[in-house]
């Protein structure tokens, strides 16, 4: 079947099977920033924005996004700024979890969330095994302008 999706502001017609998972379809069409970290919807690594809201793309059928809008890290202009801060803090390691984290954090910026405890709760689903999170928090605080 065919679906029509706007991905990163570009209109696309995608050929999919009815039981295809959004994550797999996005990867198949070259959106490699979207990655699978688990098979139980637990790691947040596959996070993309669906109509502007973060969702785990591993837990959504591609068929469901017909007519909707998907944004990956490649389509987020604010991503670069956060990426730079993360890099300067040395808060990036293997990078596998980074696009999902960035997508979610940029969303928090739009919500104007500024309390670090609230930020951590909102990002609890974004797991990382390399960094120990501390460096990420240093960077995210800067990016969001967290009140101290």
């Amino acid at each position, binding site marked *: 079947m065919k679906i029509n999706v706007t991905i990163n502001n570009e209109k696309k017609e995608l050929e999919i099977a009815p039981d295809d998972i959004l994550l797999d379809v996005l*990867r198949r069409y070259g959106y490699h*920033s979207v990655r699978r970290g688990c*098979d139980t919807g637990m790691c947040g690594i596959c996070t993309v924005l669906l109509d502007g809201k973060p969702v785990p793309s591993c837990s959504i059928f591609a068929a469901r996004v017909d007519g909707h809008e998907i944004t990956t890290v490649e389509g987020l202009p604010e991503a670069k700024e956060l990426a730079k801060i993360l890099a300067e803090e040395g808060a990036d390691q293997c990078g596998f979890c980074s*696009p999902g984290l960035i997508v979610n954090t940029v969303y928090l910026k739009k919500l104007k969330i500024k309390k670090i405890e609230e930020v951590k709760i909102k990002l609890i689903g974004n797991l990382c095994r390399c960094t120990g999170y501390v460096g990420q928090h240093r960077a995210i605080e800067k990016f969001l302008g967290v009140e101290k």
Partner: protein
Amino acid sequence: MKEVTRKIPKKDALGLLLGKPVYTDDLAPKNSLIVKILRSPHAFAKIKNIDTLEATNIEGIECILTYKDVPRIPVTRAGQGYPEPSPHDWYILDEYVRYVGDEVAIVAGKDEKCVDEALKKIKVEYEVFEPVLDFEKAEGHSSVIHPEKETHPMFEIGFDAQKNIAASYEMEIGSVEEELKKCDVVVSERFYTQAQAHVAFEPHSAASYIDMQGRLVILTSTQVPFHVRRIIAEAFDIPIKNIRVIKPRIGGGFGGKQAVHGEPFVAAVTLKTGKPAKIVYTRQEVFEATYSRHPMRYDITLGATKDGKLKVIDMQGLSDTGAYGEHALTTFMVAGSKTLPMYNKVDAVRFKGKVVYTNKVPAGAYRGYGAIQGNFALESAIDLLAEKLGMDPAEFRRKNMIREGETSPIFKIMGEGREGVDMVVRSCKLNECLEEGMKLINWKEKFPRKKISETKYRGVGLAIAMQGSGIANIDMGAAVLKLNDDGSFNLLVGATDLGTGSDTILAQIAAEVLNVPTEDIIVYSSDTDLTPFDVGAYASSTTYVSGNAVKRAAEKMKKLIIKEGALKLGLDESKVDFDGKYIYEINGNKKVSLKELATVLLYTENQKQLISDASYVGEESPPPFMAGFAEVEVDIETGKVKLINYVAVVDCGVTINPNLARIQVEGGLVQGIGMTLFEDVKYSPNGKLLTNNLMHYKIPSRLDIGNIIVKFVESYEPTGPFGAKSVAEIGIDTPPAAIANAIYNAVGVRIKTLPITPEKILMNLNKK
């Protein structure tokens, strides 16, 4: 120093952060056959019959391979130096399956769907045996896990397959029994650690294809490309020269990728069909069928005189290597060799025990590599002893621990799988780590406990740790530097950046020697066709071993530049120097820029490529040290532990890149905290791993870690590149013991089996 100690971002940071296609699955040939593995549902069985006919006939299936279709050559998957200290007990496919998840058949087809269907249609008849699931009953069990006669060790490792023993080891200095009699205070306890899972977020992935010269190319998420090349050559009996292994970016390893996992299966398919193939493990497969940490049991006996002098350490262990003996001997020995030297003033010390096979997920390398298991046992027991002596545990350690300029006989006696090397600890700021940590956690004020409310108590606890910097006399790293026409350099290294930033650190080292900005060093790492050899990223070796190789190569390059510059200026070499930009006359005005020299060398005058190389093998393995302090809050109603603060003060020599060193420690700590408090491993009665996903196997989230404070003390390791030692593993070692000690100090409950769950705490509280 200009480039070394600079907190620069990783060279690959923006590419990684912004999701560029850089991992194996992103780069695998688009037309790759999809490879999946049919895995054993039984913990121990022999394949009586496999019928693949119906599966093979499914549309899109390219090939199905069973043990009848692949060479049967015993190898070890452990990516270690050669000859390997792990027994050769693994076959690409075998008629025996030795754990739930062991490989039965390789299926390759045009897409996931047809492969999944084929997996269901393969009919296997098994002769099922009684599995060995309890490692304390493995030795001499009626089921022999490796009955096959081909399995063998490469050299003496105390291997006895008929008794399910993969390796054994024993050493004693002085007489433990005799010295114990002279001690005023003796403690004896038994400790257990669990089979922690690595959970590197990029699952194990590999792809392969035949290049235009008919050679096998393997693209793989590995820590050890050169070992992979050697092991694949051995397993398939093909020449090393016909194999190329390329390491793209790696999504975390932590030891889990110090092995071959998917590589033999894609290689088998590509060799059979001539077509590109790829495998990407599911998370469940990573849990069930790659590696875990070796679960270990230690019986620790310590003896001291009443003035608080530690006299005797006895460590008797049992380690569970699972179905294959990968890293069996070496992780076991490290539990002693990277803990015992911390207390180097004892009169007698013994370390002995066995590593047994069981029908469980194979254990392998995992950050800490035995040291964390040994540390939990020893550093818990030290607190028990201090308490019995009525001493502050920090004071007891201060009195007994190793100091700069001292040595330990352990260094020489216990290496990794064989004898070690004699060495004096040239840099050791353990005492400073301890002092600083006590200040940061406010030990004087907080030790041992504070009552917060009727149900909540806070306690502090500590542990000290050491690790190594590469394996002395075994690990080799090499580097090549090449000058480009614009005055930039290519740095080619076999070292393997797993996301740690080691490419950047190695570039910083080269830049420091050449006095150029790190940005002018372009790093390419780990491609067996293009880069020089390196054992790979393990045993905390890259900064120290590969770093020393890079430093030497850069020093050679500097000499070459001066030599060619002098020629160009028409001066004697002794009259010129190089400052990073210009080759100039020391007492005069003549100069030529590096860029100009580089250009003429390539195009016009005295033409040549400037290229330098160097190799390095450590004659020593200088240990990084640290002191870890935990402050916990225990709820006596629920048994829940909240980690409030964790202070880590580290001596890793000079930090080449302080940001990257810090994140190594922070990341290590959090994995250690996970092992201590959350990461529980459960099996079904018939040997299936139940904690095979992130729902049932909980790793720390960003809310579980409390406040983490990392500090480096000033230290300089004279044998290290610009004073550096390693830092990759040391961070993981202290949390188990420090948190266990803090919990004891808070509520008087001593948990000796990891992980420390609320249930265990409640049960022990109720017993009190």
